[in-house]
């Protein structure tokens, strides 16, 4: 059982995490969904003891991570993003270091290293220098180190970030396999990834928890909608005036799940009906001097819900997570 109580993190006057409380039962895959700078990593850092909260506490299986960090950290594994690795070591040396630092005896360490190497399919890379490994293998190595010490709960910060689509798919399969015998808590800015992997989702927006519920329950409460996510390179005002003139678009706003870069504009468009106006949008934008970087149509309920909840003045969703219901009773 993971219990987070009134967790707050302040950086000077900026509140990164604002009075968050929730309880999560063991044995599931949980997803923390939020846009960039919504506080996902800060929350995960505090839950794993990598960062101290300004207020509140985190209890994992009965241990308070602030008061008893050593015992608590022995029951958790953590994959940060980017994966923290020592490039001058081989994969095997790195795992040996982590195993020994986690307090495993030599024979136990070697046995567990062999198990995790086989589990995450690192056999071909075990004796290669980390600096020469591709990102996908580095992520697997990061997961392998998190699994050492046989932790009951594994935290993963954006485990598929930066991966090619096929590598991301393999990584998701691996996470599902881990979820069969461990509690997994992962973060992602991608609603479809959370919807495909997790049983329960916690949605963060600007440091506040705006939803915490099972996917089934959230799905039953969401009115089906059609959303287009659009990335455009060019003048934002021009793009907005073009989008304004397309009849099929009900409403649009900035896409909070994408990082704002110079010259890039990211939009989420809500459609009036099932009609697919993507060709029209692309041709109008190009005619208006904007180039389209990406465009995709989504009818995923979590995409829709995330979009609705992260709109300015949106009402927070009911937080009906199973554990909270039990507590209220």
């Amino acid at each position, binding site marked *: 059982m993971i219990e987070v109580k009134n967790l707050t993190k302040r*950086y000077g006057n900026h509140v990164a995490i604002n009075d968050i409380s929730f309880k999560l039962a063991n044995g599931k895959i949980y997803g923390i969904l939020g846009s960039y700078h919504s506080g996902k990593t800060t929350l995960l*850092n505090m839950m*794993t*003891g*990598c*960062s*101290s909260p300004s207020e509140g506490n985190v209890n994992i299986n009965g241990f308070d991570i602030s008061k008893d*960090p*050593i*015992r608590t*950290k*022995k029951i958790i594994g*953590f994959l*940060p993003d*980017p994966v*923290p*690795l*020592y490039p*001058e*070591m081989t994969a095997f040396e790195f795992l040996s*270091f*982590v195993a*020994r*630092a*986690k*307090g495993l005896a030599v024979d136990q360490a070697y046995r567990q290293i062999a198990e995790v190497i086989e589990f995450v399919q690192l056999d071909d890379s075990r004796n290669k220098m980390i600096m020469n490994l591709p990102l996908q293998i580095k992520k697997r190595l990061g997961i392998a*180190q998190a699994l050492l010490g046989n932790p009951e709960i594994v935290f993963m910060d954006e485990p598929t970030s930066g991966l090619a689509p096929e590598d991301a798919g393999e990584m998701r399969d691996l996470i599902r396999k881990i979820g069969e015998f461990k509690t997994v808590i992962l973060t992602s800015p991608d609603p479809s990834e959370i919807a495909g992997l997790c049983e329960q989702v916690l949605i963060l927006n600007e440091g506040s928890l705006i939803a915490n519920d099972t996917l089934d329950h959230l799905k039953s409460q969401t009115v089906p909608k059609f959303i287009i996510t659009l990335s455009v390179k060019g003048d934002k005002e021009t793009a907005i005036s073009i989008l304004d003139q397309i009849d099929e678009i009900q409403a649009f706003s900035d896409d909070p799940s994408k990082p704002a870069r110079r010259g890039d504009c990211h939009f989420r468009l809500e459609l009036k009906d099932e009609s697919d106006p993507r060709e029209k949008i692309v041709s109008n934008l190009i005619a208006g001097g904007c180039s389209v970087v990406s465009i995709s149509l989504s009818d995923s309920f979590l995409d829709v819900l995330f979009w609705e909840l992260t709109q300015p003045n949106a009402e927070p969703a009911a937080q009906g997570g199973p554990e909270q219901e039990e507590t209220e009773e």
Partner: protein
Amino acid sequence: MFAIYKRELKSYMLSLYGPLFIGLMLLVSGIFTFVYNYRSLSSGFEYTVGYIAMGMIVLIPLLCMRSIAQEKKTGTIRLLYALPLKSIQIILGKYLALLTVVAIPIGVMAFYPLILSTHGSVYFPKAYVSLLMLFCLGAALTALCMFLSSVTDSMVVASVLGIGSCLLLYLINFISVIFPTAPAASFVAVILLCLLLGLILFTQTKNWLIGLGGTVLCLIPAVIVFIMNSSLYEALFSKLLNKLAFFSMINNLAYGSFKLSMPIVFISTVIFFFALTVLSLEKKRNE
């Protein structure tokens, strides 16, 4: 802690840093031994040790610069924070690894008096006490530079700060001479020192109570002593600075006798900067 020590030591010895430090220290010691012992036909190795210590002004900061700054820069500090280790264990592992690298060339230098003894009479106790004090100096400078590596995530800044601080310690005798000896001047300097200590404690803990408490704890006896007997402040600051003249202590060993205060000063310095480094790591966790 042993896992950190082993990883750090291996990392130093398999990268350029460890062998370069050992090689340059041996080169410096070889040159000075050749010039001051062989060419001058002197078998007193303790005179040479003072010159060898000068090499540490540059070499120890260069060895220590990556110790924590690099972990912060590459993000591996998050891995260390996530491991079931206390900050003190992480710092101790790192410090002992650095100390091992520092000890290797000094260990090799331990053969120099034996070699010199084949050419003349060597007073072994003095030669080996000098080497032991050279190691203590290395330990103190390592603790200082490791702390400086913990306050930044840039290795260049860490090395510049380290070289600057070591150079300041080398020149501290000259600075103490130019400082006024009047009791009032020393009193003002001591007050500024107390405020500086409070500022360091505050910046490392982000707790104004600790900073203020540290300042007040030092200020109260300082003020009481000044009110009761201000003559005690006569040249006090110059004397205090002289206590930190680490390099002079090594030089003076050749001309004077060994004082127990020497290792005590070095050990106190190690403990002080070791504690500050632990605080610095904890502060980073609280950020």
